[in-house]
């Protein structure tokens, strides 16, 4: 077994082992030891992933890990890491590590922190396995690994005020995703009947899809991944799931689990799809653009902070899908870049939203005002993330959207050029709408005049809030907890730093992606 093989196998095994360890320690009532084990696990996995990415390089070499697993089904244990999956792997391990660190101080109200941490590590196992898998059935299997743990995360630790709602959200998430992934599996099996292999590297190199069967397969695979991504109109599971999940659950859902869909589109959908088919690919691109505009309009009318961020995710994923649907190397670059940027920024937004909810007990936008005045640092970080998310140049979000629109203007030759120009223009219009709702949000939630808050009596000099008993529609009472604490700084600062770094120097991410895409797709 070579060092690289150990790196890849270990990357799947390490979080799982630490997850089980956390669970066992948690059951023995060693809460502190359990959370320590979980954080250690997160950090070890992060370190391990850096080693694995460095050891693997940016191009897929003849497989390090490729052994037969189930002969009867032709399923192989085939793992690999290249410039397309490497950044996503690093992003995953980083975000999960941040979530675990965040759990140290912010224990969930209902207890069972060790269980939550263990579930996050198991989710990480599934996600890393999906990013590493180069066998279609293996990808499907790892894709499903994360589902049951995530269901427990939403159902067990979700919104404490709405038990029925979080159950409904969790079950809807599960059913939608499983329906999608079962469709995807059928599609994979159809591809297998056409090509005789589940090995996506060989398929990408030599499969030329044509005929009704191939179209059916591409539609089914696309459908499954579109549910996960999510692509409008299959996004309806997402706002509920994100809004009802606990903070770390929302972060992992948005930053990590959605990327299974976008990565799947890049790695497993593009090779089984033919860009010269009349309708399929432009249709997908069209849906993506509809999603961008729809999500922006939906955001304008949201009254709940986490739902708003959730809908903004739908819009960002629309950009990623549009980039994928251009079938160019630039599109692949844009998709990976936008995925990473979205993970960092939306992860940060959900962290801050969770921080606000922890402090004020509500995410109701009609009750949150003047946060600049009350928790200036928290509000500042939120503003930073919001600017990054609306695509301010110099931050990571900008490049994802800019590259997407650019790649849509220069799509693959087989695609209808005029259609794509129109789509690119509409997508750019969506950027404006995004800016509009984020600015409106900041105006409503962060700014405001102290006059909006009724002082207790006229001669109070400082800003003091009216009352401790909260009326349903009244502005919230003063902060339960003070401004950003040390543990939150530790958990959030990597995301902030990377958002800045990627915004200033996009090149070091784009170069390996391009190299990997050229090698993997050959013809692009």
């Amino acid at each position: 077994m070579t060092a690289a093989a150990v790196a890849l196998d270990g990357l799947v095994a390490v979080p799982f082992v630490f997850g089980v360890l956390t669970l066992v320690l948690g059951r023995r009532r060693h809460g502190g030891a359990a959370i320590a084990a979980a954080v250690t696990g997160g950090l070890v996995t992060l370190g391990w992933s850096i080693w694995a990415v460095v050891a693997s390089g940016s191009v897929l070499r003849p497989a390090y890990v490729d052994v037969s697993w189930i002969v009867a089904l032709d399923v192989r244990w085939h793992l690999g890491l290249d410039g397309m999956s490497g950044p996503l792997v690093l992003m995953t391990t980083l975000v999960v590590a941040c979530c675990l660190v965040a759990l140290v101080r912010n224990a969930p109200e209902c207890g069972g922190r060790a269980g939550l941490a263990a579930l996050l590590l198991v989710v990480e196992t599934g996600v890393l396995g999906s990013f590493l898998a180069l066998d279609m059935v293996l990808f499907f299997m790892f894709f499903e690994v994360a589902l049951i743990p995530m269901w427990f995360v939403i159902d067990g630790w979700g919104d404490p005020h709405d038990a029925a709602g979080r159950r409904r959200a969790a079950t809807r998430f599960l059913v939608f995703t499983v329906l999608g992934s079962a469709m995807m599996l059928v599609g994979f099996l159809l591809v297998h009947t056409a090509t005789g292999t589940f090995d996506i590297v060989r398929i990408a190199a030599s499969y030329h899809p044509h005929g009704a069967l191939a179209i059916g397969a591409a539609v089914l695979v696309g459908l499954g991944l579109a549910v996960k991504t999510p692509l409008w109109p299959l996004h309806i599971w997402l706002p509920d799931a994100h809004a009802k999940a606990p903070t770390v659950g929302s972060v992992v859902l948005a930053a990590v689990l959605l990327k299974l869909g976008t990565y799947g589109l890049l790695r497993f959908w593009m090779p089984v799809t033919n860009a010269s088919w009349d309708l399929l690919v432009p249709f997908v691109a069209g849906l993506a653009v509809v999603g961008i505009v729809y999500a922006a309009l939906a955001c304008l009318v949201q009254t709940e902070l986490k739902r708003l961020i959730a809908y903004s995710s739908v819009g960002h994923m629309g950009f990623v899908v549009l980039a994928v649907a251009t079938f160019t190397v630039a599109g692949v670059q844009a998709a990976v870049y936008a995925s990473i940027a979205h993970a960092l920024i939306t992860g940060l937004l959900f962290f801050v939203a969770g921080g606000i909810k922890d402090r004020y007990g509500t995410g109701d936008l009609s009750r949150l005002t003047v946060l600049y005045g009350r928790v200036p640092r928290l509000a500042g970080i939120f503003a930073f993330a919001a600017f990054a998310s609306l695509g301010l140049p110099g931050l990571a979000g900008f490049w994802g959207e800019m590259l997407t629109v650019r790649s849509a203007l220069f799509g693959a030759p087989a695609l209808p050029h005029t259609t794509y120009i129109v789509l690119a223009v509409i997508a750019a219009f969506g950027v404006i709408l995004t800016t509009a709702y984020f600015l409106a949000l900041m105006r409503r939630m962060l700014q405001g005049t102290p006059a909006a808050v009724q002082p207790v009596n006229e001669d109070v000099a400082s800003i003091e809030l009216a009352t401790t008993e909260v009326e349903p529609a009244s502005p919230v009472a003063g902060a339960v907890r003070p401004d950003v604490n040390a543990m939150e700084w530790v958990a959030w600062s990597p995301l902030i730093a990377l958002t800045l770094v990627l915004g200033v120097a996009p090149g070091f991410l784009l170069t390996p992606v391009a190299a990997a895409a050229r090698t993997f797709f050959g013809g692009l």
Partner: protein
Amino acid sequence: MVQPVDWMAIAAPLILAGVAVLVLLVDAFAPPGAGRARLTARPGAPREVPVAAVLTVVGVLGAAVPAALSWDQRRGTFCVPHGPCSFVLDRFTLVFWSVVLFGTLVVALMQTAAPKAATPPGEWNFLLLCSATGALTIAASRDLVTLVVSLEVVSLPAFAMVGLRRGIPGAAEAALKFFLVSVVSTAVMLMGVSLLYGATGSVYLRGISSGITSGGPLQRVALVGALLAIVGLAFKVAAVPFHMWVPDTYVGAPVAVAAYLSVVSKSAGFVGLMLLLGFGLPTLAGVWAPVLAVLAALTMTVGNVIALRQQHAVRLLAWSSVAQAGYILVPFGAVASGRAAFGASIGYLAIYAVMNLGAFAVAGVVGSRRPTQRIADYAGLVHEKPLVGWALAFALVALAGLPPGILGLFAKVVVFDAAAGPVTWLAVVMAVNVAIGLVYYVRWLVELFRPSYDGESFTTPRGAGLAVLLTFVAGIVLSVLPGLLLDPFTTVLAQR
């Protein structure tokens, strides 16, 4: 003329039948207190040795020995000179034997948890072994007469097993319902079989197969016969719309018997279908494959949708087993491309046996203390009884087909694999059904992790605990190495 008998080939059913008689005799003649020896030195915990159950387990293990020894061989006996044989021992047969023997073993262990006063163990185990003998024979049968007789040998003791509970009013109803449905289905099947015999002039599957290829005006008669026989067998496997007896029978019967019906008896039905259709009527596949595809779609959809509303654990498992039967039927709809597609059904059936027995074994353990069997009775099981709780959690997740129950996931992959291509629409229907099924499995699953029901602890009956452990370990091992089971089972028909 003296017909040579290959005793090695028929050793396994013979051993089971012999032990069945032995169990009955020992139970009848043993003095009442003979089994009262103490197994444990723990004070105040006198445990009777369940003699009948121990004998049954030994018998099943004994029957497994000749079966295992014949793994690489092909034996036939009761043959027409230079012609087809009635009793054939090959990979196909042995694969089913392993399912039947595993199922019987687990069921025998489960029943030790049942109160002895209600169910006389001697008679019960006798009936179990008799029925299992029939299940072994049907897998080896290669003519219609042996097939029908073995199927009846499976069913007749099962009626009595369902009803053999004193003082429980539901038991008689369950047994009667099961009996009536079964008798009707047998009658219909016999009608079909006689038509097939009339049309082809042979009772041997091989003879029927070649008799039909010659075509002619009798082909329609054969077709009607085939459809009637399918209907008869569809009752046994509880395919919709022939499933009405399942829920009441499962609920009225002891949990162990419900487990037996859902795994061993159902396997017997499936092996009958495979033999009849795959070996006897492959030339008519163009007609029966679409029929079975529709049956499969109906079965899984109805089973899953009705299971959504169940609050009773065993009733939920009953409907879920209807739905699972639908998945097993899916490859039948895809056999136009060749008999090898049955491999998917066999693989699914074997994995289903492990998962479903696991769920039923836990239901038996919990039912020994909380006989109401509401889903809510399972609250907190993971905290109360970690082994039992995790075993049920694993079985449910596997039945839903999600990791960590990877064996369940690959069982579904195998079936999807058979369906994708020849009957893609059915694969899509199944994909939708997998998502529906998830809802009720997860609803039960979450109960296990809730805070405890009443905090009242209870001891796991030893035999039933062993049954849980057996299925749990088998499930874990097969999740790590699914190829261990799938490689030999799914290719059993492809190699020949």
